[in-house]
């Protein structure tokens, strides 16, 4: 039978589509929960200190290969650190970096997006000019400069990623606000004499929060992969912190030499996390978009 799919409108325009999954995305959410679990209990789960190694036992392969042992189940890296322990602690670093960076970007972007969209005029001009400038500056360039200014540390990487990516939020949220402004309840609130601040806080924010959440899940992936690229360019999370992106950048040389476990394991972790976040985001799009709740 031919299919006519109901007309749907995207809340988040153009950057990503609305997605339909059969029910709850069980696998992606389980993966994310697992990563979160590992991140929280890293201290208990990790068999070794992730930051300490010894050159005497560098490049040990995973246990099932010749020369590997169960002491270091997934092998050791170029400084002789346990790859499994680094992956486990890496979950924490990547989760913290990813989520906080998205929060930073999301808060700045949502706030400015709302102000820009609702207040219009002068405020709008300032915010939009800044976003234009930001967008014209390649993200990595910007990140390298910021890294040079503030120096590398986990916290600074979070700030950098947040500062690089807030504009994406600002643009989307502003667009949403512009259409919300035309809606009855906002007009009613204006007529009822609510202050602009109250309207933005009480009426606009709750209505854009869904889009912000959806965008956040999609941005999580972007942020984590960017973090890896920054490490590749030498301005990411500083070693010996076990971040997945850093592990990949550090281990990339090993790839050519047959030490595949150095990059493949963190690669799988990043891939699973990013894929899951994206699939969850796409599902949330459908769930959180009121226009799609009818069926």
């Amino acid at each position, binding site marked *: 039978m*031919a299919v*006519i*799919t*109901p*007309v*749907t*409108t*995207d809340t988040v325009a*153009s*950057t*990503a*589509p*609305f*997605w*339909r*999954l*059969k029910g709850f995305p069980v696998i992606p959410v389980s993966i994310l929960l697992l990563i979160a679990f590992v991140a929280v209990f890293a201290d208990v789960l990790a068999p070794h200190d992730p930051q300490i190694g010894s050159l005497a036992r560098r490049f040990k392969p995973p246990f099932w290969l010749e020369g590997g042992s169960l002491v270091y189940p997934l092998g050791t890296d170029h400084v002789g650190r346990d790859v499994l322990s680094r992956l486990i602690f890496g979950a924490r670093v990547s989760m913290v970096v990813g989520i906080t960076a998205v929060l930073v970007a999301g808060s700045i972007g949502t706030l400015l997006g709302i102000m820009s969209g609702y207040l219009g005029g002068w405020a709008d*001009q300032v915010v*939009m*000019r*800044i976003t*234009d*400038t930001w*967008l*014209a*500056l*390649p*993200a*990595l*360039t910007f990140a*390298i*400069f910021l890294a*040079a*200014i503030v120096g590398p540390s986990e916290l600074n990487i979070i700030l950098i990623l947040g500062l690089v990516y807030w504009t994406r939020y600002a643009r989307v949220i502003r667009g949403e606000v*512009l259409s919300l402004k035309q809606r009855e309840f906002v007009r009613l609130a204006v007529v009822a004499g609510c202050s602009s601040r109250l309207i933005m806080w009480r009426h606009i924010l709750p209505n854009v929060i869904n889009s912000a959440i959806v965008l956040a899940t999609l941005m999580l*992936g*972007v942020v984590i*992969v960017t973090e*890896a*690229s920054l490490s*590749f*360019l030498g301005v990411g999370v500083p070693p010996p912190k076990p971040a997945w*992106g850093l592990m*990949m*950048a550090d281990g*990339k040389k090993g*790839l*050519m030499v047959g030490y595949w476990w150095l*990059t493949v394991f963190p*690669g799988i972790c*990043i*891939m699973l996390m*990013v*894929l899951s976040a*994206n*699939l969850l985001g796409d599902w949330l799009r459908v769930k959180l978009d009121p226009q799609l709740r009818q069926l």
Partner: protein
Amino acid sequence: MKQYIARRVGYSLLSLFLLSVTIFLFVRVTGDPVSLLVEPGASPEDIENIRRQLGLDQPLWEQYWHFMASLFAGDLGQSFYYRVPVLDLYFQRLPHSLLLAAVAMALSLLIGIPSGILAAVRVDGFWDSAGKIFALLGLSLPQFWVGLVLILFFSVYLGWLPSSGSGGVLHLLMPAFTLGWYFAAAHMRLTRSSMLEVLGSEYIKLARLKGLPEALVIGKHALKNALIPVITLAGINLVVMINVAVVVETVFAWPGIGRLLYEGITFRDFPVVQGVVIIGGAMIVMVNLLVDILYALIDPRIRLES
């Protein structure tokens, strides 16, 4: 309409001005090119000498004034590292970047559009998931890793493709794929959502009511409409690709703009960084401007709103 365009152009120029100040200051506060042109511990005389040669002994505002004045004269200055005009460098690299971006975009659309259509037409089916996940994978893996795995497999192991550099078509394949794959997810998503939107439209309903075969409904009526936003995005992304391919260009030793910029940053080659960022910014601002104006021409509501 004229007024609208004039205003948008004005904003764009303002943005570019902000960009020029930002990049001018950024590049200066974050490092000293002289310390990179000599070994640490070089004699103060040599350092002073180089500083004078590069014009870094002048006060900041004077440097900025000089930079802006030359910019309006169409001169972006001389590279500290290469000691040749930045524009020369830029136009030597630009064809490579354009080529890479164009092929990468073609590959990206080749992945993104079919998987997007499949995802929209076969919602929740096997092909939906397969296409979706394939397109998303490009986004989920760091480019440097994808690049190295490709080199390892196609160059070292199979020996089919040259590992790096530029030259023939074969040189282009791996970097273009790596770059294109990263962007494929965005094109897939937009194709999918745009396709779904179009499929829900009245004219698609009518096309079906006419008794057209499904292939004709999708391939003719829906696709052509659904591709409009995708092509718009592709246009913007093409410009973006030219400017952000640092990682791919580094891994594959591709002599493009991204690497020029990256090396400019690492050497604090102020004129190169300023020049590349400003030209890149102008390109992006211009494309956005064009899109805005085109949409305004199509949709009068936008004009009223802003």
